[in-house]
């Protein structure tokens, strides 16, 4: 995978943004890698960040529907990839965290993820373990009690910022003009992607780069459809601030119905009821199942859902809060196939290679 700090960005992506107070260094990235994979930072000693963001699964836990934490406890959401997360303006499906640094704090102490009561056990390990002590001293010039979660999460974020992946067949075709990079079906699929399919309005492709996300939140008729009767009572809880901002992380991962409120649980704006962040489509073919709740098994299911105008079963009623951009698309079966073929052209060769090697094992 490309190291953002030492090389230019891969074809199709802009330079990765790095916060001024957390510059990238090789030693910090290596420390972050170690922390990312350390299972001791969970109450059972069995779960690290990598459990749900596995390198060989394009940094997800595919094919799980929703993620599994300690003792096989499940949350409510499908693990989003770490790949290209550096470009996201907010973290988590509902954007409840503003940065990679902040995001890294929460799974450690969520009861259905890594299950720690607080961050103290992590600090105890990194302050006493000789390898960590040495690394924190050399990266941050800190030791003992001077090491805090700030340094821990900065190192993890620095590691995650290197996980950029592009240079896909699509990128070689679109940005380099390599006509042989895509099949005819994939090229037709792109035509649908930017026109009849209306996909590009949220999964953004620009002239010099393609993040395939607008970093915004939309109600696309997933999840919320099943809890429409519960919305008034649930919404009231959040409007009246009976669920404090600090409780949202635990609440939305433990309570399926609260989870479906999406971005509304964070901002409490009606405009964002049932709305979730647009995920990137890069490497999407490797990370089934799909959507924030993992409720759609294949890319074809996803396209059919959008083709129906925001419902998985064509005859079902759409939810009252559906985002304005979602409407029936009138795509033919062949056009749906082409669109799926196009999304299969968004896989980075090195990510696919890792997945292939893991399969052999």
């Amino acid at each position, binding site marked *: 995978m490309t190291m953002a700090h030492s090389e230019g960005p891969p074809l199709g992506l802009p330079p990765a943004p790095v916060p001024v107070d957390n510059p990238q260094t090789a030693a910090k990235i290596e420390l972050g890698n170690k922390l990312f994979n350390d299972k001791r930072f969970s109450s059972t000693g069995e779960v690290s960040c990598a459990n749900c963001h596995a390198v060989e699964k394009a940094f997800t836990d595919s094919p799980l529907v929703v993620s599994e934490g300690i003792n096989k406890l499940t949350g409510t959401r499908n693990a989003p990839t770490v790949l290209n997360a550096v470009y996201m303006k907010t973290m988590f499906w509902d954007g409840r965290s503003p940065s990679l640094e902040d995001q890294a704090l929460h799974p450690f102490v969520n009861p259905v993820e890594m299950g720690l009561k607080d961050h103290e056990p992590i600090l105890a390990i990194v302050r006493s373990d000789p390898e960590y002590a040495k690394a924190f001293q050399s990266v941050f010039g800190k030791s003992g009690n001077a090491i805090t979660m700030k340094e821990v999460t900065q190192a993890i974020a620095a590691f995650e910022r290197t996980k950029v992946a592009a240079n896909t067949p699509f990128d070689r075709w679109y940005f380099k003009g390599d006509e042989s990079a895509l099949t005819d079906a994939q090229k037709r699929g792109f035509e649908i992607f930017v026109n009849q399919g209306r996909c590009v*309005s949220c999964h953004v492709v620009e002239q010099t780069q393609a993040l395939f996300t607008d970093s915004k939140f939309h109600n696309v008729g997933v999840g919320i459809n099943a809890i429409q009767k519960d919305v*008034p009572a649930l919404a009231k809880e959040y*409007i009246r601030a009976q669920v404090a901002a600090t409780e949202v992380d635990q609440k939305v991962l433990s309570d399926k119905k609260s989870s479906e409120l999406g971005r509304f649980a964070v901002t409490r*704006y*009606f*405009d964002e009821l049932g709305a979730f962040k647009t995920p990137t489509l890069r490497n999407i073919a490797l990370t089934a199942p799909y959507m924030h709740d993992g409720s759609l098994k294949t890319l074809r299911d996803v396209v059919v859902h959008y083709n129906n105008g925001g419902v998985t079963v064509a005859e079902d009623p759409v939810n*009252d809060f559906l985002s*304005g*951009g979602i409407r029936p698309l009138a795509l033919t079966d062949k056009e749906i196939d082409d669109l799926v073929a196009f999304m299969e052209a968004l896989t980075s060769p090195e990510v696919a290679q890792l997945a292939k090697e893991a399969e052999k094992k």
Partner: protein
Amino acid sequence: MSDHRINRRDFLKCAGALAAASCLPVSTVELAFADPRENFTFAYISDAHLQLISGTKFVRNWDRGLIRAVAETNLLDPKPDFVVFGGDLAQLALKEELDHGAEMLSKLQVKVHHVMGEHDYYLDLGEYWSKLFGPQYYSWDHKGVHFVVLNSILTYDDWTFNRWPTAKQRMLEMAGLDNPNGSPFMVGEKQREWLRQDLSKVKKDTPLVVFSHSPIQKIYKGWNFWTEDAEEVQALLKPFSDVTVIYGHVHQIQYNQIGNISFHAVMATAWPWPYPQTYAQAEQYLPKLTVPMNRANPFFERDATGWQMIDIDSGRAAMNYNLYNNARRTVAFNPKTRQPEDKVFQDPERRIPPQTHF
């Protein structure tokens, strides 16, 4: 402000503050409960333009706008005291369209007061609308505020009764913008006389809120952002100390102060209108309006539409605009400058300059 204007919100603010010295004396606060006026809110949904395609098929985009506004209004907590629907429920005043709208609005959990729009009227001159929603102009009192609904989209009798071979053509002519065959809206003499008599029973310091479909002020005649007898109606409102006029029709945020009268426009749930070119400060060379929509983002069908929650604070309105894909805005009466002002964007430094179009 005199002491009788102390409202419940001020009381709560004071009750919550330990530093009693900065608050009002308790005896004055008790007056708040002697006063019949209390703070309250109501919601305002307008300009749904539900449009029949054929059979039972309606334009999906307009349907979704109203469905969403109704569903969100039902989530308001605390509940608004009532909802006003500001007119143009239908596109061409068809029974099917009005029935379709009435069905959607029946989901609202509080009472709905209706205002007549020209798109509800010019097919059968409001006959079916009145069957569904009642009188076309009326008034009521609520928590110390006098509310009036006017039918402001009438026009000259000659145009209405003598000019058009069919009712359908009359409807289509009035629905057009920049239409040389159109005719200016008006409240009319009969209704102004009714209003004069209605207001004669109301004390002059009673806050007055008037709902109309068209603005009771003259903005842009070509699009009927206009009421021909606006000055006559304003004259009837002039003796009152607190007057607010709230209107639909324009599908955009507008606010203005004329004498003692604050004017506020509401958003449509259907589509936005661009600001008419007469609003521009510099000369423009725009072609005649040919595209009926000017969205910032054409993909998001709800962009530049919305609905509003209105806070009646001491008899003056604070308009809270719920805008999709856009920053929410509040336009409220500023007692210091005595005019409505945007809470955030009023200061020229805070304004967002318009985009340059090529």
